[in-house]
């Protein structure tokens, strides 16, 4: 079987070496915790509600790259595509806590839930209040309770980061972030899989001439497998799934994120966003802002996702806040 070609030292050390690289790059704005794979801001203000995100590594710049000003205060990282263990989450929780509680915000995956829940109980024993919100933006993965977290997660982190920087209580931050989550819908398409650095093996197989809408990053089955089609045909189909799901209506105002899965080029993403905006305009949906880039990836996986977040005045206020992080900076 074909193996991935990657520039690595010892593949077992990819996560700590990646985090060391970010700390060095960022010149003191973030630090790695001793002995565990967690990244935290160095300048978290006293009395701030804390936002902790996390999950398996390998989705860079998620999640460590979203630690920054008006974004997450910390990120707990597991091995590649594996949940962070409770001790990592607990250490990160203690490192970001400033007396006002901690919001855990992460994707709806069984391994992540088990580990974050256990950490939340351990944090409670140490007197730290934790609330949890799950990201379930993928409309292709069944009823809402089963839905996975994909690219739209980054829009949720943006809003939660803004709310946590502004509001005084954990409950208020939870309310705003819940509203954002209720208004985010995404769908993805896969062209070929990414690989696991430790084994060099790809996570799923898809024929050279096939694409699958809704396919998960570990090869979870999607909703529509087809031969390759032109961008416009594909985007039309993807938006059909998203628009009818919330549903988005004429006159709604949205943010758009067209997110690359890793090896899909900026050219391809811009062509996809071009069509996305045409379809939204035809449906009378107003676009507040577009983000086109690879914010949530799966190694060299090819494909992309489209996410929409419906805005009201409150969500727009938090979306418009400036942010500074390795993965996403906005003035």
């Amino acid at each position: 079987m074909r193996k991935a070609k990657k520039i690595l030292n010892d593949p077992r050390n990819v996560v700590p070496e990646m985090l060391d690289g970010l700390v060095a790059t960022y010149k003191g704005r973030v630090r790695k915790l001793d002995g565990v794979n967690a990244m935290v801001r160095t300048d978290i203000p006293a009395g701030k509600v804390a936002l902790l995100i996390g999950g398996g590594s390998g989705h860079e710049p998620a999640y460590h790259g979203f630690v920054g000003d008006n974004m997450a205060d910390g990120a707990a990282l597991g091995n590649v595509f594996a949940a962070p263990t409770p001790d990592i989450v607990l250490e990160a929780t203690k490192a970001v806590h400033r007396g006002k509680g901690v919001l855990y915000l992460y994707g709806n995956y069984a391994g992540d839930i088990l580990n974050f829940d256990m950490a939340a109980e351990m944090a409670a024993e140490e007197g730290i209040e934790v609330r949890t919100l799950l990201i379930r933006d993928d409309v292709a993965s069944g009823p809402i309770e089963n839905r996975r977290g994909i690219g739209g997660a980054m829009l949720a982190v943006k809003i939660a980061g803004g709310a946590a920087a502004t509001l005084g209580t954990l409950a208020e931050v939870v309310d705003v972030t819940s509203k954002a989550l209720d208004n985010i819908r995404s769908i993805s398409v896969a062209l070929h899989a990414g690989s696991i650095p430790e084994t060099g093996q790809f996570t799923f197989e898809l024929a050279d001439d096939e694409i699958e809408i809704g396919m998960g990053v570990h090869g979870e089955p999607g909703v529509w497998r087809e031969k390759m089609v032109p961008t416009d045909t594909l985007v039309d189909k993807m938006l059909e799934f998203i628009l009818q799901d919330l549903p988005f209506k004429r006159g709604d105002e949205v943010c758009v994120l067209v997110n690359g899965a890793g090896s899909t080029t900026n050219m391809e993403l811009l062509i996809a966003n071009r069509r996305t905006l045409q379809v939204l305009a035809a449906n009378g949906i107003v676009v507040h802002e577009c983000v086109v880039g690879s914010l949530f990836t799966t190694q060299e996986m090819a494909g992309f996702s489209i996410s929409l977040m419906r805005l009201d005045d409150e969500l727009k206020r938090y979306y418009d806040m400036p942010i500074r992080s390795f993965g996403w900076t906005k003035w």
Partner: protein
Amino acid sequence: MLLHVCQQMIGYTDILTEADKAIGDGDHGIGMARGFEAVSQKLAAGSYASLDQLLKIAGMTLITSIGGAAGVVFGTWFRDGAKNLGGVTALDARVLAAWLADGLAAVKERGKAKPGEKTMVDALEPAAVTSSQVAAAPLDEALAAVTEAARTGMEATKDMIASVGRAKALGERSRSHPDPGAVSTYLILKSMWEYAAEAMSPGQ
């Protein structure tokens, strides 16, 4: 006994990898080996005054070293199973029954899994039920029955369709393969039984 379990589980890496490749991402064998290697190092590094202390440390070590869902699930069995064993220093069939019953309850609570969903619960639950029925027997006899119950439960997962965890996404495709977690559960109990049968004197 726990050291023997560790050595055996490390030796089962390839079997578990194959089981997991069929319906998962193939990392279960490596994960369990990493976990039990860490436990054996912990055991070598210190001495423990009581069984519950030993099992709690072993459970926490499994949680932090295996990672993913399996770490929490197996670690919770070992750790929370020991919560009512306060100060016990020797393993007998009664202690085994309490450890399995409390461990099962904790795993079900944590993983929100019920029997029939193609998880390790399908092996652990029959093991716990059988264990409570043979709690007055000598340890090696009790473990023989418990291991057989776990094996039967594990075999039954071949006919189930996964409805929780990562294999859930495979749906019908998960049929005809046993659940890797159920295989591990059976192998852990089998290793305990082998040791008890060999040692002849319960509680070593």
